């Protein structure tokens, strides 16, 4: 791996601090090295190296047959990836911005997701791309469309918050026999760094993780808002409120046990997500708690989410639209009083 990197400059040497973006690239690079069945398919991923340069250098190393530039045809990208997977390949399809994934909605929800259930045809593909707001991308380059797909049996949906998880979960996604949607929050791409292990590792799909221990309330979050939640929790600690922070990492299947264990300890729950409110994962968490831990709740489930509007463009509007630390603090303080 280290020698390979020297040869091509395709990825930095492991065991140094890497960005979220480089963690994604490392995962793809290492999986392609490990298994020739892994191929990339997407728009501008070859010659150009991807709009965010997540696949830079991979064409030079793995060649035209494994790094496939496509026309602007999201349905064809997903469809072709699916067809390739039927012959045992493991394609990673890139949506240049995850907003465009809805152009392939039918292909994903009706063809790819239902295949195993209906006719015993697993489709081991990964569909990944940059998502999320806070970078003033406007209404068509800032979306968080994860919940369209969390509502689709047959898919797995991952939305990591750290470089370590991004790399480990992307590797798990490539090795998984099911179609996996992999959302990468573009706000995190170059803003956070982390030292990664030099050796091959994976992070299991479907397992949430406790990011901070606490006893007064549980904040459940994922992706960029996980970091906002941690910042809020640090501030809350100064006020004597110990918040536990859970990073969901995988939205489908949802790790109910980790949520319930924490709730049993804190008895209060706040869900923070950047997705819009109605139909967001917070509603699902609320339902699970009501069904399985109603007696343990000492307060209402609260949620801090984006507004139920499209993502607006102007910084003043977008800042108002998005959840932030202040909104989390306000909700947490209110909840703590119960």
């Amino acid at each position, binding site marked *: 791996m280290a020698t390979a990197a020297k040869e091509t400059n395709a990825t930095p040497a492991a065991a140094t601090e890497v960005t979220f973006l480089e963690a994604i690239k490392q995962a793809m690079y290492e999986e392609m090295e490990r298994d020739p069945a892994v191929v990339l398919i997407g728009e501008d991923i070859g010659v150009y190296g991807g709009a965010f340069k997540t696949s830079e250098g991979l*064409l*030079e190393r793995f*060649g035209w047959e494994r790094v496939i530039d496509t026309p602007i045809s999201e349905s064809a990208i997903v*469809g*072709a990836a699916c067809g390739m997977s039927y012959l045992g*390949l*493991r394609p990673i399809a890139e949506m240049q911005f995850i907003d465009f994934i809805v152009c392939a909605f039918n292909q994903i929800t*009706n063809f790819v997701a239902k295949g195993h259930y209906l006719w015993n045809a697993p489709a081991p593909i990964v569909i990944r791309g940059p998502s999320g707001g806070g970078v003033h991308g406007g209404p068509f380059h800032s979306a968080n469309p994860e919940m369209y797909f969390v509502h689709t049996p047959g898919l797995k949906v991952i939305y990591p918050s750290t470089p370590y998880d991004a790399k480990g979960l992307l590797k798990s996604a490539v090795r998984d026999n099911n179609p996996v949607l992999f959302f990468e929050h573009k706000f995190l791409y170059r803003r956070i760094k982390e030292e990664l292990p030099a050796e091959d590792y994976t992070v299991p799909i479907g397992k949430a993780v406790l990011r901070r221990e606490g006893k007064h309330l549980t904040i459940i979050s994922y992706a960029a808002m996980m970091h906002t939640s941690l910042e809020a929790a640090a501030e809350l600690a100064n006020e004597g409120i110990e918040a536990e922070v859970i990073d969901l990492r995988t939205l489908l299947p949802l790790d109910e046990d980790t949520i319930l264990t924490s709730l049993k300890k804190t008895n209060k729950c706040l869900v923070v997500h950047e997705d819009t409110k109605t139909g967001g994962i917070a509603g699902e968490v609320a339902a699970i708690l009501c069904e399985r831990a109603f007696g343990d709740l000492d307060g209402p489930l609260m949620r801090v989410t984006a507004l139920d509007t499209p993502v607006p463009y102007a910084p003043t509007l977008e800042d108002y639209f998005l959840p932030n630390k202040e909104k989390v603090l306000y909700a947490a303080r209110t909840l703590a009083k119960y």
Partner: protein
Amino acid sequence: MKNGLMRQQYLDLYYFMRLNRAVEDMMVKLFRQNKIVGGLYSSLGQEAVSVGTAYALEKKDWLAPMIRNIGALLVKGVPPRDIFMQHMAKYDSPTKGKDGTSHFGDLENLHIVSPISMLGDLIPVMTGVAMAGRYLGQKIVAMTWIGDGGSSTGVFHEGLNFAAVQKAPFVLVLENNQWAYSTPVKRQVPLENLADRGKAYGISSYTVDGNDVLAVYTAAKEAVDRARNGEGPILIEVKTFRRLGHAQHDPAEYVPKEMRAYWEARDPILLYETFLTGEKLLDEKSKKEMEEKIEKLLSAERDFAENSPMPPAEFAEQGVYCTGDDCHKIRPKWERPIAEVTPPRSSVAAVWTVEGFGSGKGSGGGSAPFHFGDTQKSEEKTEPATGEKPKDTEVSEAVAETIDSAVAKPGKVAGKVSAKPAAKITAKIPAKTPANARAKSHPAPKKSAKPAVASSKTQARKAGR
């Protein structure tokens, strides 16, 4: 015989058309006995399309049927009981009752991809199948069908365009049965021949009389051979007619009487029977034997299907996800050295330069794969730049062909797309064929006699504007 068929193959085509019709006749009976759970779609009068095209495939090839391609499934080796049980939602059916009709597949043995009801989605999927087969060195061809109606979906165009730029070994049969539910083809597409849609993607296409099984087979065989040889995807329009309604519930009163009468007089099975009898390939005795064989087979298959149980209710909850190796061991079957697609051999130099486009980091040249224009072959063709022969020095071969893949291998293609296939396809069919349904071959656009090198410069300039 011009089409290269042997006696047994002529009879196979007949057998599968008869079997196709008999299977569907039996399902009509089952439907009337309320033994079929959902709707029943018919391919009455279109048997030559399903059978003639699928018969051109080899065992290792892949196909994905549409709703009226029961015949293709039979040719590929699906036992009639599976088709009966699918319609009856039985537990022993390929989908174990989870889906009906022709919505089932078999990745392991028969190489069949299941359709979904949304039209056109199979086109990029089968393009992916074709690309994966090529990548793995399997030399397969992927085939699917689309109706005149389905050819207006967005994904039809996305898929066919992508197949074309990839030069995927893929054959698309556009089954023009004149009606999309109740909407006639003229209200859907302002073209006389839907094969013309192939021109938009720079691929070759054919128009064939879909009620003439030999014409269909001959065109399909040529298309499959060409696709397998790396000529890229091919579109075959077969003109035929949907004799019944969209499904059993639809009396199709919107169809003009004269139109129905015209096509009913051109029943594909009767036409072929006349041909076979005239050629002394079939006599009353062998025909009767075949009928008895089919009857015996289908009554046993129907009994099996009827005796199969319904799935247990709780089964509804199972099988949404693959649980891993214990569920499916997913391993590609490599038929080429893996070293070709792994570094260092897969590595390509960053030398993609295009006149008028600036220079990019990417790659081309010797390591570019076949689907970007057979770079190495073209280089062999190029003569040394010494004499008076004009040579393009501004645009590299690889680049020119990337821009205009249709110009690749001009000599070969031009030869093939001439009037030859038309002659072949109409051969030996005794029945009257309407002028517009006669087999025709549409050459891919721009495959002129002009040398590729001379035109590539112009192409690059055009593309730059």
